[in-house]
């Protein structure tokens, strides 16, 4: 499979089996370069497996995956292109913060020692402190610093803020955004908290059961999704350009989440704006119809 120009991650029929359980099956998707892409989905959708496959921590059971134009972890050059901060933001508890930076400097040809030192200083971390004595948030920040100072083309973050308190969470995402604004690398991060993603992601991918339910730029998703509520109505009678994402009805009233490029003209509807979380939940809700992935292009 040849990746489309501009795709930083491209998978085709990707599957991963752990012993007898499939964690990901027949997953085909593309993630555009130059974006901060948020990967959301319910537990067990295959998010972590997908990210581990992209970083090369796992090898696919079936299908193929291409990251930055190469097979994940296929060699030192490929490893240098991709940064990965795993879910539990691992650090060596016996090594000091300074040791971690030295480790990064020794093991990465493009290591940015200045950036690493500046970030550690800005975070107020003591370089002599052993990583095992850092708080969860500080450890996550150290792991992120190592990912950033590696200067990858793609930085993958798996639930990086899951274990952090709201303040540490904000600081972490703030740091990530600043780095992206400076260097313009691609980021792929997963979370089941849409509110966190909303702050940093400009592109979104909703993964349910290994399938891309929806993907697109956050702005477009917000602009094209509407909540319609009004008298009870069969969703089949909606105009052809309004794709129903989710529907719920009482005896007298219907509420639809629809996607359309066109303005809503029917005066019978009360049209409500949706937050990103509403959009994501509409796609993740069990009532949402599985449909072929449609890509939103501006």
């Amino acid at each position: 499979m040849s990746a489309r120009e501009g795709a930083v991650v491209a998978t085709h029929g990707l599957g991963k089996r752990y012993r007898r359980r499939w964690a990901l099956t027949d997953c085909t998707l593309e993630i555009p370069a130059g974006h901060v892409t948020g990967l959301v989905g319910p537990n067990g959708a295959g998010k972590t497996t997908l990210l581990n496959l992209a970083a090369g921590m796992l090898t696919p059971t079936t299908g193929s995956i291409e990251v930055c134009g190469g097979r994940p972890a296929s060699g030192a050059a490929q490893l240098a292109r991709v940064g990965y901060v795993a879910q539990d933001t691992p650090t060596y508890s016996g090594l000091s913060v300074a040791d971690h930076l030295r480790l990064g400097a020794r093991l990465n040809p493009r290591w940015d020692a200045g950036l690493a030192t500046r970030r550690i200083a800005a975070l107020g971390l003591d370089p002599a402190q052993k990583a095992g004595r850092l708080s969860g948030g500080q450890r996550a920040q150290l792991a992120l610093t190592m990912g950033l100072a590696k200067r990858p083309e793609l930085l993958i973050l798996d639930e990086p803020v899951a274990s952090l308190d709201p303040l540490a969470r904000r600081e972490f995402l703030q740091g990530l955004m600043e780095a992206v604004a400076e260097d313009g690398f691609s980021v792929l991060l997963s979370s089941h908290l849409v509110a966190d993603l909303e702050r940093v992601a400009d592109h979104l991918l909703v993964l349910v059961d290994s399938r891309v339910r929806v993907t697109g730029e956050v702005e477009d998703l917000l602009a094209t999704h509407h909540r319609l509520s009004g008298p009870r109505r069969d969703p089949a009678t909606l105009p052809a350009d309004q794709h129903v994402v989710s529907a719920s009805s009482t005896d007298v009233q219907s509420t639809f989440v629809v996607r359309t490029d066109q303005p809503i003209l029917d005066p019978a509807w009360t049209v409500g704006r949706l937050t990103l979380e509403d959009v994501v939940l509409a796609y993740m809700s069990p009532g949402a119809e599985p449909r072929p992935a449609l890509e939103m292009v501006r």
Partner: protein
Amino acid sequence: MIWLGWRQLRTQAATLYAAVAVCAVVAVITGSALPRSGPDVFDLLTPGDRRLYFTGVIVMALAPALVGAFLGAPMVARELESGTHGLAWNQSVTRTRWLATKLVLSAAAVAVAVGALSLAVTWWAAPLDGASSSTRGSLPGRLTPVSFAMRGLAPVGYAVFALLLGVAIGILLRRSVPAIAVTLAVFTFVQIAMPLWVRPHLLRPTTQLVSVSADTIAGIGFHNEDPVPTLEVQSPPGAWVLSDRTVDAAGRVVPVPSSFVECVPRPPRPDQPDGPGVVNIRERMDTCLSQLAAAGYRQRLVYQPAGRFWPLQWAETGVFLALSGLLAWFCFWRVRRL
């Protein structure tokens, strides 16, 4: 990568080298005070010396096991268990190079440390190995299973093997503590299995037919209530005797014939001091032995002669290094697929 490998190894390496240094100092101090030559070395030994001798054997048997359990088993298992492999494998270094660096550094450190320890113990024990007294007993020779793997080069092979065994088991189990336990169990089994089933066949042993006579006999063994005794003939000095069996004229292994059993005088019992005199017994015995020899019975002695010590050392070290190579290959194969 060498920096990280060394950084992670240095505490354990320092402990290992400190322990080796302590043992070496003890060996040098006590070794200088030992009677180091002469025919009566054994008679000059104090009970303390003999205790130290066996302490040396135990230290050399334990050293590789400890290396495997506490250096080898947690090496990768601890990374897998704490998730730090996720950090290490996402630097710009392939897993193969990561593992190769760790293995080479630790194997080299272990080989040098255990080699030095073995040098100290081998030097210390050299005058004592096989030392015997005509009246009071002896210490086992350096070719016997008691001390063969605790002298010379072999401990280096054992230690490198134990290290890689630990790493491989750690990669398989992905947990430090179970890996330590399994490594100790498997390595102990190997330590026992080697002299029992493998070492005797590393080099073809020498077989010798000895006709039994008063000059060649070393002992007649009566076992519990079994009326048929077994014969033992004298073996060359320092040899490792693998078997010493009675064969008939056709070369078949047979029990000692009943004619001999009837002929041979029973040893005087302590509660019957009035039996036949010692001189009489000796004469009777000589007659029985010459009758046995005349009937075509011989003792077939299978042994590794003393001169095989170094060839066997090289062979056994080679076996363990080859096994280490296989284990290393397994580690690389498995780490690429984790």
